[in-house]
């Protein structure tokens, strides 16, 4: 439990105690208890609406937070996973394949992270190698060929910072994804569902619509990395998180994100089905809107979107 949630839990248990006392002694305290409950809910809502950047980073990284695979299972029950980059191998830290959304074929690509130590190792903590980005690129080009929209679910600490990844061209792989996505003639909708870690996240996020969950973030560098470089102290990550303007709310204000998708109070993990249903509803909405644009219009609109980012600060 997060520190700021402790007080809330104490309040809740007090209400529960009161309920038990009332039941034992057959007092009718229902109106008082009802009022207390409403008050707890109000405090809870206020608490979660005013989370600091660092608290949101914490929520975005929670092990029990649903990942791309959870949402794929919930939103796309007919998902057919496809493997490999046709060049080097299959990177399990990226999941991609075919599915239907409201009867329409789509290509879905996401970052895969583990839920325990073993899975974390297997999926490399959601950090892709070049072959992962190249698999994603292959699936996007395949989507373009068959006129299917592309949906990406971003949740990664970043591209894998290891020697093999460098040797196989991590920079080139990401650069190619940015180039290919920017010219793809089908709609692309990205949902940042957890961590949006730097270039490794951007490699799946050159979209017509960038949606972000309420407690997700998207940053040029991890708060820890930023703190250790700029403040010479990784312990000042909380401060760095604020300075980086990485929260969904910041990104919406900066016109980087098109929409913030609200989470259940306390975070997406509190109601996975509800969260998935909400994401699905927004995907359907945005794909419906984008379906009115022709291929070249989609490319132009997407380029224009990125060309204009930050223009108000020039």
């Amino acid at each position, binding site marked *: 439990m997060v520190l700021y949630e402790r007080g809330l839990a104490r309040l809740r248990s007090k209400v529960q105690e009161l309920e038990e006392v009332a039941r034992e002694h057959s007092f009718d305290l229902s109106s008082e208890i009802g009022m207390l409950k409403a008050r707890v809910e109000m405090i809870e809502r206020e608490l979660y609406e005013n989370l600091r950047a660092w608290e949101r980073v914490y929520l975005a990284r929670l092990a029990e937070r649903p990942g791309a695979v959870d949402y794929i299972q919930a939103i796309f029950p007919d998902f057919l996973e496809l493997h490999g980059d046709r060049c080097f191998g299959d990177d399990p830290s990226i999941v991609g394949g075919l599915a239907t959304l409201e009867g329409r074929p789509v290509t879905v690509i996401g970052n895969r992270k583990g839920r325990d130590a073993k899975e974390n190792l297997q999926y490399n903590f959601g950090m892709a190698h070049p072959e992962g980005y190249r698999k994603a690129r292959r699936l996007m080009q395949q989507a373009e060929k068959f006129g299917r929209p592309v949906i990406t679910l971003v949740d990664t600490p970043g591209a894998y910072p*290891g020697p093999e990844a460098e040797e196989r061209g991590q920079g080139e792989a990401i650069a190619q994804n940015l180039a290919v996505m920017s*010219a793809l003639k089908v709609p692309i909708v990205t949902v940042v569902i957890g961590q949006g870690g730097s*270039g490794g996240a951007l490699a799946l996020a050159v979209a017509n619509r960038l949606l972000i969950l309420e407690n997700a973030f998207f940053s040029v560098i991890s708060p820890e990395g930023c703190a250790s470089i700029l403040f010479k102290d990784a312990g000042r990550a909380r401060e760095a998180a604020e300075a980086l303007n990485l929260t969904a709310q910041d990104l919406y204000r900066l016109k980087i994100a098109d929409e913030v998708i609200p989470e259940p109070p306390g975070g997406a993990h509190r109601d996975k089905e509800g969260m998935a249903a909400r994401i699905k509803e927004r995907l359907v909405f945005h794909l419906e809107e984008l379906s009115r644009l022709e291929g070249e219009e989609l490319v132009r609109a997407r380029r224009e979107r990125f060309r204009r980012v930050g223009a108000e600060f020039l």
Partner: protein
Amino acid sequence: MFPGLKRTRYIEVQASARTREHPLEKCPGCREILVQRQLEDNLKVCPHCGYHFRLTAAERLEQTVDEGTFRELDADLTSGDPLSFPGYREKLEEARQATGLKEAVVTGYGEIEGHPCFVAVMDSHFMMGSMGLVVGEKIARAVEAAMRERLPFIAFCASGGARMQEGTLSLLQMAKLAGLLQEFGRAGLLYVSVLTDPTTGGVTASFASLGDIIIAEPRALICFTGPRVIEQTIGQKLPEGFQRAEFMLAKGFVDLVVPRQHMKATLARILKLHPRGDKNGSL
């Protein structure tokens, strides 16, 4: 139509203040003590071991672009502090004072052995050549100018990556430039990227890696993740030469490693092989 072009001006390329203050310099490659004047006459390459010293943007332009042909674009575009990031304004001011530059990239029109082109030259002496909104914008406008004039574009990369102090706005410059260069390529125009020491992070993962032809200077560090971070990740030292230009050549990520003495001639040769004129399928 293109505001930058109207504001073009000639810039004076002259020896940096640093050179005047420090007549002697120790070569990091072989530890020989070198006389600055001789070093400059040798294009800032150590005459003993061939170590390529990092160049300022002005030095690069002087070495590459025909005398009197350079017209700078967007010389007055300067960075604000969009996120009110702690200490950023002071750092920018320091960098401006130290380098005499307004930002970490100089862009403009120039000729190379008579071949007209647009160039972007990054300068690692300005906040490690990091890319924020203005660096991204200046490069984007140079690409757009080249596209309008139907001329080749050459980028000299030297960068620590995306600039942290502008957060996700910096990160998105990568996508902005990748998209623009894709459009540039589809117009049938030539883009040459020259990777100089150091080319890293978000610059490697965008325009640096997207050249039709990619040239590197000898021994230049070219990477996505820097060696120190990798060594922290794996807990061991990396082998000598890892992520250097020659390594990247062997791994297939650059076309050529070209020593500085041959850089201008090589670029001219490439430009000559891509004569001007409308191509099929042009925009």
